[in-house]
Each structure stands twice: as C-alpha cells, then as structure tokens.
C-alpha cells in the first residue's frame, strides 16, 4: 500500500507545493537586479544590506522581538502555576478553568485585535506598546498551558511527594524537584509562544500606533506598495529563525508533539 505509485506521486506533488514557494522566495532574495525575478538575475547580498539599513524594518524587528520575549515571559510566570494546578487531581470546575485558558485560541484573531483596541487603547487609554504586550500575553497563554501541561502530565509526582515527606516545603519541592524535571517543556513552550507572538498579524494590526508597529505589520504594508526582493531577504532571515526554533523544539519536546 505504502509503495503505491499514485500515492507516492501525490506525496511528492504535495511536498513540492509545500516547500517550493519558500524555496523560490529564498532564491529571489539573492537577486542583484532592482526587481523580483525568478530565476534570480545575478547574485548579491544587496537586499539583505537594504533590510539591515532600513530603519522601519530594524525598529519593528526590535519591537516584535521585545514584545514576543516579554509576553512569553509574563505568560510563563502566570501560566506555569496555573498549568501545575491544572495537572493535579480533579476538582470542581477544572474543565471550565482549562477552557478559559485555552479560549484565546478560539476567538478569531481580528476579533481579538478589535476587542483589545477598544478596551486597552480607547477605554483604558494604555500606550500602544503596553497594549500590544498585554494582547500578546493573552495570545500566547494557551500555548504555555498546553505544552507545560503535557510535560507535567508525564511527570511522576511521587518524587515531589517524596521531597515533601522528607521535609521540603511545597515551594521548595516545586523549585528543586518539579521545575527541573519540566525544563524541556518550559523551553519548548517558550519557543512556541515566542514564534506565535512574533508572527501574529490579526491582533497586532489593531495595536499599532505612531512609531510602534511589529515586523509582520510593517512587512504587510511594504508589500502592498512595493514589489522588490527586500521582503524575500527578510523572509530568508525569518526562515533562518524558524529553523533555529524548530531545532530547539526538536531537542526539547520533540517535533512529534505537534501530532498529538
């Protein structure tokens, strides 16, 4: 069955469809001409240089990075205790609480963005950066709860109980026993939350203002008016980041986590 010719052909075509476009983008990034062309004309790094000299791209890259790191850290600080509480015995309302933490994933992105805009920027008069940060904390919480939750499910809590029965306080047992045992889950959760915050478009779209925007948003407005290999060069840089993140996830949680 597995070696059926038609099946193999379908698989090859699908993978060409999945990988081809990104490879094409990669190739166009090294164009030496002024316009997008494939196959690329000549070979140069001029578009990479252009990206690094662009104030807009560099500023928004910095903002995206800061927001993604800070939002993920905040979500970890409030998410780890919650995931820990959720992984312990059943108690009333556990399912409801779990669903509350997962709910940001269910709300359509643009609705999230609009709601954040109305509440944080209009109603509470928060600054754009702070609003963006709060919005992204909400967006990444589900990833933290899920990934850390699944690492806690695999943890044998009897080792924690052993520490407590030997005289450690609950808090000490958590930091000395539980946390070190879920480190790989925490790292993977960080990576997944980071990339999902970094790549977010629909919510960030509503939370930009004078001088504050994220990289995907500035890329979007750039491609609406320009058609040159600068975006290809930026794409290559972002894809390199994705490869690095995937590598870290594979080394910690394992990519097979995605199929669960």
């Amino acid at each position, binding site marked *: *069955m*597995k070696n059926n010719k038609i*099946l193999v052909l*379908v*698989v090859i075509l*699908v*993978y060409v*469809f*999945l*990988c081809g*476009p*990104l490879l*094409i983008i990669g190739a166009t990034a090294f164009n030496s001409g002024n316009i997008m*062309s*494939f196959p690329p004309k000549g070979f140069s790094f001029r578009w990479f240089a252009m990206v690094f000299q662009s104030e807009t791209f560099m500023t928004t890259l910095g903002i995206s990075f800061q927001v993604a790191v800070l939002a993920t850290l905040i979500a970890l600080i*409030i998410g780890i*205790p919650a995931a820990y*509480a*959720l992984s312990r015995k059943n*108690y009333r309302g556990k399912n409801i609480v779990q669903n*509350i*933490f997962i709910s*940001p994933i269910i*709300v*359509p*992105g*643009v*609705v*999230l963005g*609009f*709601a954040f*805009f*109305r*509440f944080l920027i209009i109603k509470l008069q928060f600054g754009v950066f702070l609003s963006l940060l709060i*919005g992204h*904390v*909400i967006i990444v*919480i589900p990833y933290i709860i899920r990934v850390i939750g699944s690492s806690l499910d695999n943890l044998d809590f009897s080792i924690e109980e052993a520490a407590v029965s030997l005289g450690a306080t*609950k808090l000490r047992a958590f930091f000395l026993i539980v946390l070190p045992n879920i480190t790989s889950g925490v790292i993977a959760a960080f990576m997944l939350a980071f990339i999902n915050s*970094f*790549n977010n*478009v*629909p919510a960030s779209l*509503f939370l930009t203002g004078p001088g504050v925007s994220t990289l*995907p948003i500035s*890329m*979007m407005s750039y*491609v609406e008016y320009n*058609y040159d290999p600068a*975006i*290809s060069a*930026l*794409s290559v840089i*972002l*894809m390199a980041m994705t*490869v690095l*993140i995937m590598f870290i996830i*594979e080394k910690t949680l394992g*990519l097979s986590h995605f*199929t669960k």
Partner: protein
Amino acid sequence: MKAKSIYLLLIPGLIVVVFFLFVPILMIIVPTLKGDQGITLSRYIIFFKDAYYMSILMRTVRIGIITTLICILLGVPVSYYVAKSSPKIKGLLLAAAIFPQLTDSVVRSFAWMTILGRNGIVNSLLVSAHLFTEPHMFLYTESAIIVGSVYLFLPLMIISMVGVMDSIEDDLVEAAESLGANKVVAFFKIIFPLSVPGMIVGSVLVFTGTFTAYTTPQLLGGNKNTVLATLLYQKAMTLSDWTQASVLSMVMILITLAVMFSINKVASRFYVRGV
C-alpha cells in the same frame, strides 16, 4: 495539596484572562444587543438582510469550505504516507510540514504573490511557452485566496492526521487486499473511514482558520474580494464604524463556535459507533 492553594495558583492567570479577554469581548458585544427598550436583535437582522454583507459572508464560507475539502483530499493520503514511513523519513516529512506552519503568514502569502502575480512565475512560464500572449491576472481573485489558504492550512491538516494514521494497523489493509480488494478500494474502505476522527479535528482547525484569516485574503484577494476578517478591519480602523465592526465580531465568534460545536457533535457520534 489542599484545594485552597490550588485555586490560589490559578488566580493570577484567571484574572488576566478574564480581565483582558472576556471583559473586552463583552464590551464590544453587549452594546450591539442594546436597544431603546431592552435587548434587540435589530442590528443583526439588518446585517443578515443586507445583500452586500451576505455576499461577503457567503464568499468567506465558500472559501473556507473549498479550502477544507482540498485539505482533506490531499491530507488523507499524505498523512497516511508520512505515518507509515520509516522513522527517519517520517521525521523529515513532519519537519517539512511543521516548518511552513511556524513561518510568518506574511512570508507565506508573499511567496504566492511572486508566483501568481502579473510578472510572476506562472505568467512568465505560460507566456514563454506561448500558451498566453499576455499575462493573465491570477492574483487578486478568489482562487488565489483558496490556493494561499490551502498552502497555509494543509500542513495543519497533515499534522493533525498523522497521529490517527499511526494507529491504523497495516494488517487491516493487507487483509482487505488478500480478500480481493484492490489498492484504491482498500484505501477508501479501510483507511479513509478509520481516519475520520483525525479528519474532523483537522477540518475544524482548517475551516475556522480559513474563515477567520486576515493576511492571506488581504494580500492575495485584493480590494475586490473582501472577506469577513478584512471587512471587520476596514469597518473598525478605516471607517471607524465600531458598531458594525462589533456586529461582525459577534457573527464571526458565533459561526466559529457553531462549526466547532456541530462538527464535534458529529465526531462524538462516530466514536459511539466505534468507527
């Protein structure tokens, strides 16, 4: 651990989510239901009677359904192949599906702009092959949005089905074949029905993802092919028509929830039948 301290650990997270997610959403939704005397649905009735809004809603649903069907059609055989490959190949194929999943959606849509655009790869191939005398407009059409959406969500479908395909015993297929079924029949009679649970999970993700996507329809659909998400952004930020944007938010949330709920209902019936 005492129940009390468990609740204590949950409180910071719950406060943040309730205050910064539930409150803002209620704040946009509640006013749409307020009338002069109590609750009114008039804003929704107006929305559903408006031909322009309906055409956008229909387009969004149509794109979602077609994308989901294509993803099922391609996802079933591919995920089966991935699941049954040797560990090394399997890891490689999974990584190749996860990679686009973690790549920025702007990058992924931009890739299709360069392929389908006026001076794009498809056009230059067709013109140089003398199939067309002048470039054809593939970009800024509904089909472009569908191609971009399949590209965006097919990895998700493959990934959500590999786990289910893993659990299908090879013996079943061999048994069917030894009893005289040819490969195609065996595929549709054995693998297809057994993969339904994974297909359902994947379909919910693909449909709701396509239905609510902003980047792809914005970049590949252009101004003519407005969908609900791009309409919401226009209403909220370009036209500052917050009431209409709120009505749209409610419509999007309700349809998303209805789809998730009803597909899961169908799924639970399958489980009961033991498929």
